[in-house]
């Protein structure tokens, strides 16, 4: 793993606003290729991010040297694997500034984390007439689990409206909180609009009503320094694959006091203290929620990804990506016929747009022919599309390995789209 001084250019160490991107890009083997005869410009980072060789090699090394099952073998490999696995739990704890490592539960991803809270925490507590409050900019993964519960329990899903800029209307949020609200589930950063929600303020207001808050951190975790204790949220979920780590691994953070009161989500090995045919005693947290053999190598990869991101530093990453987003917003806005969706004051790394007279799918195909990878569609956030009365948008989303030259390629690519349809 490179030290901070190796990754940051001398100028960056002084100003902390730009990175040695040439050097960083060298860490990402996939970025070196050509697509359709042009250098790949990967701008679909909100869907998933690419992996540095440090992550790829950590997984390969783990399988080559240390791999075994965890928590049960007395042999050397099992102990090594267990130690490496549990060391990542501590790494995650420190990364998101949780109070204790037992508050970190490994899951498949954000979606599973949200579902674990829905079914392990809320389901036994939810009664007919109760309410769950989400925002109008949620990803389907933070809508559907709650809808399923509401249907089962005859509870009501309520939605905080968003304004034309794509921001939560705070007064409406305050108005919607009431004695029937059992949970607030809200995204930290919107995947479709890029909006950064005022989580700390939202949590404070919910807590005045004794309502717990789940924060969907899938989009926030690669871009912002997250401090779950400062946010004071009760649950925080995120995925490894958006944080330059592998797919199939994610994290649910929960306050220990809440996790302890929760029922297990799945039964099986590793989540038990003792089993007889008459009665099973459950293991303590976090193991109570990690039934079966987990994605051990995925956890190792996630640990390497966190090391990588921390070596660069989230402050430097945020500053650089903000600069890139501002530049992209300015340049793309100059193109006649472009409408940018999501103009929140606080925004991260997402540029969602439409082009007059051109469907986003056609934009996506024509950009792809120029080697530029963007997302075109509803971004698993159909209610956001409905809110802005568009069937879909084109979305460019940035990571710290992207460059201004790539933004220029995007702008030229969009102009080429206009030419086809002129």
């Amino acid at each position, binding site marked *: 793993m490179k030290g901070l001084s190796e990754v940051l250019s001398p100028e960056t160490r002084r100003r902390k606003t730009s990175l040695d991107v040439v050097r960083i890009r060298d860490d990402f083997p996939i970025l070196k290729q050509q697509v*359709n005869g042009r250098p790949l410009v990967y701008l679909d980072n909100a869907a998933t991010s690419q992996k540095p060789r440090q992550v790829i090699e950590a997984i390969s090394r783990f399988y080559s040297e240390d791999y075994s099952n965890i928590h049960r073998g007395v042999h050397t490999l099992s102990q090594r694997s267990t130690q490496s696995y549990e060391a990542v739990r501590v790494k995650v704890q420190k990364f998101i500034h949780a109070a204790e490592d037992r508050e970190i539960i490994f899951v498949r991803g954000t979606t599973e984390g949200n579902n674990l809270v829905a079914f392990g925490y809320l389901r036994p507590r939810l009664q007919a007439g109760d309410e769950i409050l989400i925002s109008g900019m949620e990803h389907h993964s933070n809508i559907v689990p709650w809808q399923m519960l509401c249907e089962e329990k005859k509870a009501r899903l309520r939605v905080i409206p968003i304004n034309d800029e794509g921001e939560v209307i705070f007064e409406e949020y305050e108005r919607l909180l009431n004695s029937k609200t059992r949970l607030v589930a809200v995204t930290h950063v919107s995947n479709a609009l890029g909006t950064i929600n005022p989580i700390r303020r939202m949590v404070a207001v919910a807590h005045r009503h004794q309502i717990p808050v789940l924060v969907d951190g899938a989009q926030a975790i690669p871009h912002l320094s997250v401090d779950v204790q400062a946010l004071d949220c009760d649950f925080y979920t995120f995925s490894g694959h958006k944080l330059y780590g592998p797919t199939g691994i994610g994290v649910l953070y929960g306050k220990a006091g809440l996790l302890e009161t929760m029922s297990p989500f799945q039964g099986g090995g590793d989540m038990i203290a003792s089993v007889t045919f008459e009665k099973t005693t459950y293991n303590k947290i976090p193991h109570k929620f990690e039934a079966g053999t987990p994605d051990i190598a995925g956890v190792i990869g996630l640990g390497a990804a966190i090391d990588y991101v921390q070596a660069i530093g989230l402050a430097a990453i945020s500053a650089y990506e903000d600069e890139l987003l501002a530049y992209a917003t300015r340049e793309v806005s100059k193109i006649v016929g472009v409408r940018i969706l999501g103009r929140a004051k606080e925004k991260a790394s997402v540029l969602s747009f439409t082009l007059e007279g051109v469907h986003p799918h056609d934009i996506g*195909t024509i950009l792809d022919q120029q080697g530029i990878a963007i997302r*075109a569609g509803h971004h698993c956030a159909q209610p956001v599309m409905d809110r802005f009365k568009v069937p*879909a948008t084109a979305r460019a989303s940035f990571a710290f390995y992207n460059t201004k030259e790539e933004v220029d390629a995007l702008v030229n690519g969009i102009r080429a789209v206009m030419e086809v*349809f002129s």
Partner: protein
Amino acid sequence: MSDLRDLYQDLILDHTKRPRNFGQMENANCRADGHNPLCGDKLTVFLDVDNGVVRDVRFQGSGCAISTASASMMTESIKGKTRAEVEALFEKFHQMLTGPQSVELETSDELGKLVVFSGVKEFPIRVKCATLAWHTLNAALKHQTEPASTE
């Protein structure tokens, strides 16, 4: 970029910008809604079928260039045809987009102008865009109540 002109041919772009037979039909005796959940494209196909023959057809909705042009050109190519002829045409069209290369050559005569969509084959993710209108048409002819889907 060379494949792009195969996909976005002038004839396709012409139908995208000026879709033919676009809008509602008051006296339709068959209609169906179609939806491509991947991109959110939605369209409705209206038919006036008399004695097993398509007398008139119109469509309405919003979609990408490929799906709009495909719907527009479909309406032109099926007017006056019998149900069986329409079904056979859809079969050929589908084969052109998804079958092996040789199929394309064999079917080009029967497909007429619709061969302009043969370039879509090189863009597998876009095949559904080109077939949405046809799936919807199929549903309308069969008086299905469930909306047609590309999935």
